[in-house]
């Protein structure tokens, strides 16, 4: 049997691109929206995270959230948002705290401290999942690449009677809206403290407060995205939109706008590819936005490889 011919299933335009927007709109619109909200929220905040050279801290937090989630579930015996959130935030704080302690109290450098703390917590989480996974309704696949598709199994709940949507989609939508609104509200202090902490201090701002606020927001975003994209792929959603956009523009407002477009395109093509190839939607989205980065890297005006080669 030829393994390669089976690898790529037959492509049917009708089935892959038309049906999700016509008769199967109901389940697929939620997958699309969930993908969009996750990528948009991550991309928006990720732009600042990347500028502050904290990209790998985001990765670390997304890994170490796992034991927090499992323990929160085992303690509260429910999948309610609040205990899950508390568990995850606790794990996030523990991560940054432990990294700081190891870095300050021993001769271990920050990078190694990061590598030690998040892998340990993640390993602990994986063992917990393997031991108690049955009770937690989490499996290792979900940890590795998330299960966006599961939003379609959720019952619709009403949003103040205005419209109906699955609970997790609604939550993620609120989180992304929160991220966008907070970034717009605190745009100036955020920008100044990201690019020039010294200036920020002289202007009477407190960069440490900004830092902790951003970390908390990051934790919220990572936790809410966990179910959808898992522990590892979050970093794709955090880094790619911002870096790709920064290849295309120098102006931060434009960059932030482009991250939203990337999120839209990523969710759109990711969903369709996942449907066509019968693969995880989160994996497909991250591959699509990786592809977009590669395109921008090669073809971007002024910054792209081609432009530089022929200048």
């Amino acid at each position, binding site marked *: *049997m030829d393994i390669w011919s089976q690898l790529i299933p037959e492509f049917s335009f009708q089935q892959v691109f038309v049906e999700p927007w016509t008769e199967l709109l109901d389940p697929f619109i939620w997958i699309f929206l969930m993908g969009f909200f996750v990528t948009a929220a991550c991309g928006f905040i990720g732009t600042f995270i990347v500028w502050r050279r904290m*990209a790998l801290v985001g990765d670390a937090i997304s890994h170490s959230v796992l034991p927090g989630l499992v323990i929160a579930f085992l303690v509260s015996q429910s999948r309610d948002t609040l205990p899950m959130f508390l568990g995850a935030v606790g794990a996030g704080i523990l991560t940054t705290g432990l990294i700081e302690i190891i870095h300050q109290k021993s001769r271990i450098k920050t990078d190694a401290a990061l590598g*030690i703390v998040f*892998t340990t917590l993640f390993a602990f989480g994986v063992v917990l999942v393997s031991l108690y996974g049955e009770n937690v309704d989490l*499996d290792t696949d979900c940890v*590795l690449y998330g299960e966006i598709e599961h939003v379609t199994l959720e019952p619709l709940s009403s949003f103040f009677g205005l419209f109906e949507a699955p609970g997790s989609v609604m939550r993620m939508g609120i989180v992304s809206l929160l991220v966008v609104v907070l970034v717009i509200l605190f745009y100036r202090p955020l920008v100044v403290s990201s690019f020039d902490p010294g200036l920020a201090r002289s202007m009477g701002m407190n960069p440490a407060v900004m830092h902790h606020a951003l970390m908390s927001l990051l934790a919220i975003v990572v936790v809410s995205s966990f179910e959808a994209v898992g522990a590892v792929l979050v970093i794709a959603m955090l880094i790619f939109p911002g870096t790709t956009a920064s290849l295309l523009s120098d102006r931060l407002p434009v960059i932030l706008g482009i991250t939203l477009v990337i999120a839209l395109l990523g969710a759109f093509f990711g969903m369709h590819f996942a449907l066509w190839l019968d693969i995880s939607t989160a994996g497909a989205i991250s591959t699509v936005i990786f592809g977009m980065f590669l395109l921008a890297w090669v073809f971007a005006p002024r*910054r792209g490889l081609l432009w530089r080669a022929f200048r």
Partner: protein
Amino acid sequence: MKLDIGYVLRWWARTSSFAKATADRGAPRGVLAVLMGLAFAASAQGARIGDMQETVFVEQVWRFFTMKDAVVRTALLGSVFLGISCGLLGSFIVVRKLSLFGDTLSHAVLPGVAIGYLVAGQKDPVAIFIGATVAGVLGTVMVNLIKKTTHIKEDSSLGMVLAGFYGIGIVLMNRIQKLPTGTQSGVDKFLFGQAAALSSVEVWMIGGVALAAVVLVLVFYRQFLIGSFDIGFAKAMGLPAGLFHYLLMMLLAFTVVVSLQAVGAVLVSAMLVIPAASAYLLTERMHRMLILASVFGIFSGVLGAFFSFLGNSLPTGPLMVLAASSVFTLCFLFSPRHGLVSRWRKRRSREARIRNENTLKAIYQVRESHGFAGEGVKLTDLAERMNEPAADTRRRLADLVATGVCDLKEIEGKSFAFLNPDGWLKACAVVRNHRLWELYLTNQAEYEPDHVHDDAEVIEHVLGEETVRRLERLLDYPSEDPHGKLIPSLADVQRSLTQVSPGEKATGYRMPNQ
């Protein structure tokens, strides 16, 4: 949100245990089936037949350590080799601050694993090795290219390659699982590792990489060492530093790739970083670090394999990592020089010494204020001097008594402290240090006399004998401090300890009991 439990259970069934793998390989199947049945029944019934569970547990431990099973031997051997190469390469990674590069590399090899599987049409270790190595090299090149050709910083470019390659890997893995032969492919074990699933070919590959790592590190130890700590010096010596860097990176890639089956892609970086970081806390010498890291690596690997063997459905990788982190925690707390507890105890003993020295100084000062008349020092006088409640002073003196330089006696209902010769010497030395330093600051550093006390309070506890001699020389053997008080010189102190002849001028430095 409810996940499909049936699916989860099937997934577990696939990520099988040592025991299951043993059964597959034709070890005494009947016995094993009974054991497994017992284990299952025991865990289902709980405490009622707990002793039966214990038998199984002991049996399992026995089986693991007698190494009668080929699977156990294979897994153990694999873990040992893995520990060696991870420890060696990890040490270089940690001292070169490349820890996160290891993480990126371990995720980036994933698509290579999948493509290797697809090309070979089955789980062929060699094809997977080649595929993964190519992907790893590609990832490394891409990190460097992004860094060179864009303004994107290194941490982001590491993250991008990690996430991008991992995403592609996940997509390919998903597709392989959907192939008719895919469910038996075993590629999912590359994510979290299963030492029991190691084939003998894989163990020989791990062994080969470990051997190569040991030989290359032994042969090129100097070159690797210089290249890791002082790249400029390496270049000045005419060493091809770039070449050795790439050699190290190649070895690293091989280590990551062969470790995949046992530890899994997600956690290989931990096996690189954690044993090496633990060793880093214990020694200052690179060769000792390399050996210690390998030992820790072996220990974590074997312990992880052991627990994975005991707990039926547990993936090996996370258990190895937890074993390694336990070692790290111990080193972090108890390392003789860098450990948190050791340093805390050192600080405690230093604080206790300073406290005792301050008490001695106060005793001296009380005696001085009485013109060195009388041998004992009244506790209430001392309390007044120290400006604290008598109860605190009593505690202070009790500490001093415990060090054996002082006696506490009750005379006529009042407590008196008596210093013995050792204590008196120490008290004189502290006072001398204090007053010498005050004089030094006034004379040489031109401090105002009323500004010197606080500095002297700190320095009096750390001045060594040699420094004191130099200070005395520098200040021309002074006898008075800026406030007009006597500075007990070495000669004074020593004379005070011997019998003073009747005609000699009294310096006041006479032992209380003379």
